[in-house]
């Protein structure tokens, strides 16, 4: 990847002049200063939410799944809704890292680390639900195909739930490895700044990284390979999650459109979550020059596209329900929109199809506050999408005699809250203990930014204007001589 890959038409990604040491200082600063009041407050809230969730989970395990609002007809509701929601959130991170890396989208550099961390934490939250939703979670290890004295009784490789076990754990492991490999140079940077115990800890974590070019060469290769592996993995994971539903016989679940629909939805919700986190982070950390409006804007464009796919999928489902002539299917969709859970359906449609359309307006997609609000709405909408798919398909299926209603209990709400608590606790800890932005990668794009600024300044000087650092956007062919 050499420099000429970067078009001169592009705007620099670091909008203020910074030295390399400056970048290091800046990114490492949150790890080295005392936590701010805002952080402490946020952390307290997150930990309290987590504690409530932990209590609710132990209550569930002690008493039985009966403390939830499920019944003989609706066997999954909040549990799997939350699972799919969090897996979806977990998609943007690796996607930003891997796919954008493959597509040479350099703007990913300042957001990929946090997005990957977000992925890991979201997958942790997601992984929690399949475990606690089991009637006997302490026997969950029976899902692993290990030799045993039962003859050996293996597992059912035809079950989408087993695919999930493999998909989610592989996704988590590969994402974690990808993230960790990406962290290595920065861990070494931190190690070399730190003192005492911290230096020793980071010394272990950095695995002896010394910036050797021999290492860098292979490291870059491996990073590319990991990105290439992670990309289909991201797509496969939500494909498999969608098969939990698509391979069933239930009207509303049994549909081949689910894999692309779910992947698009996952990217959609994941980007919304990344945006949410990034906008808050850049504000709190004062990193507006590192996470620029351009980053945000690019992400809103991804949201417009994926939101469009999701909207198309909604429409297609309805069309197929009508076109197939299957009365069960037709009823399910009529019931979805106009049945007792119609309100959830319309929340889903307005948040997921309506809201993203506002991003067509430049003013909206360049206003961080507007983006934040809309991104939150999209996350709400995507949660409801999973709720609608799961609950409205189950609660009225083939035999009207078994039709039933579902309402969550406080315990279920507490577990949902707890999953957010877990997510934010981890994320807030992450902002304190690890470099949130890839120092090495940002340094890599720094030179380009500096040259752009210099060239711009030179052009301005030639034109007799005064130079302004950070002035951007002029397409000037001149670049520094290199030979």
């Amino acid at each position, binding site marked *: 990847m050499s420099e000429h890959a970067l078009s001169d038409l592009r705007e620099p990604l670091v909008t203020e002049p910074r030295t390399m040491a400056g970048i290091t200082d800046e990114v490492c600063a949150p790890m080295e200063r005392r936590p701010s009041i805002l952080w402490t407050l946020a952390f307290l809230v997150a930990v309290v939410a987590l504690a409530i969730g932990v209590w609710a989970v132990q209550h569930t395990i002690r008493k039985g799944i009966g403390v939830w609002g499920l019944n003989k007809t609706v066997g999954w509701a909040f549990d799997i809704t939350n699972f799919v929601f969090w897996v979806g959130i977990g998609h943007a991170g690796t996607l930003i890292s891997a796919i954008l890396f493959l597509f040479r989208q350099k703007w990913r550099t300042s957001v990929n680390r946090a997005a990957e961390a977000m992925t890991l934490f979201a997958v942790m939250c997601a992984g929690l639900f399949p475990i606690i939703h089991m009637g006997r979670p302490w026997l969950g*290890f029976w899902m692993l195909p*290990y*030799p*045993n*004295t*039962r*003859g*050996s*009784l293996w597992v059912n490789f035809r079950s989408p739930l087993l695919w999930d076990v493999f998909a989610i754990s592989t996704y988590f492991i590969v994402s974690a490895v990808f993230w960790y490999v990406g962290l290595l140079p920065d861990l070494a940077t931190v190690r070399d700044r730190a003192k005492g115990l911290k230096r020793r800890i980071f010394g272990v974590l950095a695995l002896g990284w010394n910036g050797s070019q021999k290492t860098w060469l292979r490291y870059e290769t491996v990073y590319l390979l990991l990105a290439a592996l992670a990309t289909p993995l991201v797509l496969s994971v939500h494909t498999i999650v969608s098969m939990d539903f698509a391979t069933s016989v239930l009207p509303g679940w049994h549909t081949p459109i689910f894999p692309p629909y779910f992947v698009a939805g996952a990217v959609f919700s994941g980007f919304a979550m990344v945006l949410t986190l990034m906008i808050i982070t850049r504000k709190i950390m004062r990193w507006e020059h590192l996470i620029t409006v351009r980053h945000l804007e690019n992400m809103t464009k991804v949201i417009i596209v994926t939101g469009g796919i999701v909207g198309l999928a909604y429409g297609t489902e309805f069309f197929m329900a009508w076109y197939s002539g299957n009365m069960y299917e037709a009823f399910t969709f009529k019931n979805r929109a106009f049945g007792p859970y119609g309100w959830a359906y319309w929340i889903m449609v307005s948040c997921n199809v309506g809201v993203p359309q506002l991003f067509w307006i430049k003013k909206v997609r360049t206003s961080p506050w507007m983006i934040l609000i809309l991104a939150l709405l999209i996350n709400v909408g995507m949660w409801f999408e999973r709720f609608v798919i799961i609950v409205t398909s189950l609660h009225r299926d083939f035999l009207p005699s078994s039709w039933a209603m579902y309402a969550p209990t406080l315990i279920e709400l507490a577990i949902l809250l707890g999953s957010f608590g877990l997510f934010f606790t981890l994320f807030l800890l992450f902002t304190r203990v690890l470099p949130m932005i890839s120092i090495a990668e940002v340094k890599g794009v720094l030179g380009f930014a500096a040259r752009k600024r210099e060239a711009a300044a030179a052009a301005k000087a030639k034109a007799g204007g005064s130079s302004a650092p950070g002035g951007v956007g002029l397409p000037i062919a001149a670049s520094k001589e290199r030979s």
Partner: protein
Amino acid sequence: MSMSNYPNRMLLALAGLGLLVTGCNVGSQQGYEPPQPIAYSHAQHAGDLQIPCGYCHSGAERSRHAGVPAVSTCMNCHTQVLPDSPEIQKLSRALAGGEQVQWVKVHRLPDHVYFSHKSHTLTAGLACQTCHGPVQQMVRLRQANDMSMGWCLSCHRASAKKTTLPTALAPSPTDCSACHQ
């Protein structure tokens, strides 16, 4: 510090995996030989004296349960034989309404397993020793086999392969519901 850490770590990981793999067999009761309230010797009764198993365990060919003999069954002989032995005295006391004899159960299948002695003895014609080991040599009863599901299945699978009987009559099903019902 150096590569020398690797083997250790590998060993640890392997040990962990091994524990997981063998985990369920660790709970097996194979070799269980608890002390019993009466010093009863199968070696003497079933071995030396050659009393047939069914004399005492009369349910073995009639019922799910082989059963433990009623105290009166022991006394069929022991009113004559060694009536004054302190061990036999325990039986007489129990029969007279005193303290009950509480044998310690040796062979225990979990409750979710349906096992019928009759099907294995009367119908399949297996000797008691096939599962219970050489009881006639045991002074104190010991569980000879691990009695795990895999152990049951090994026999069921083998005999299912050998049979020439029509399927409906074939013994030793490997269906789940043969034992879990």
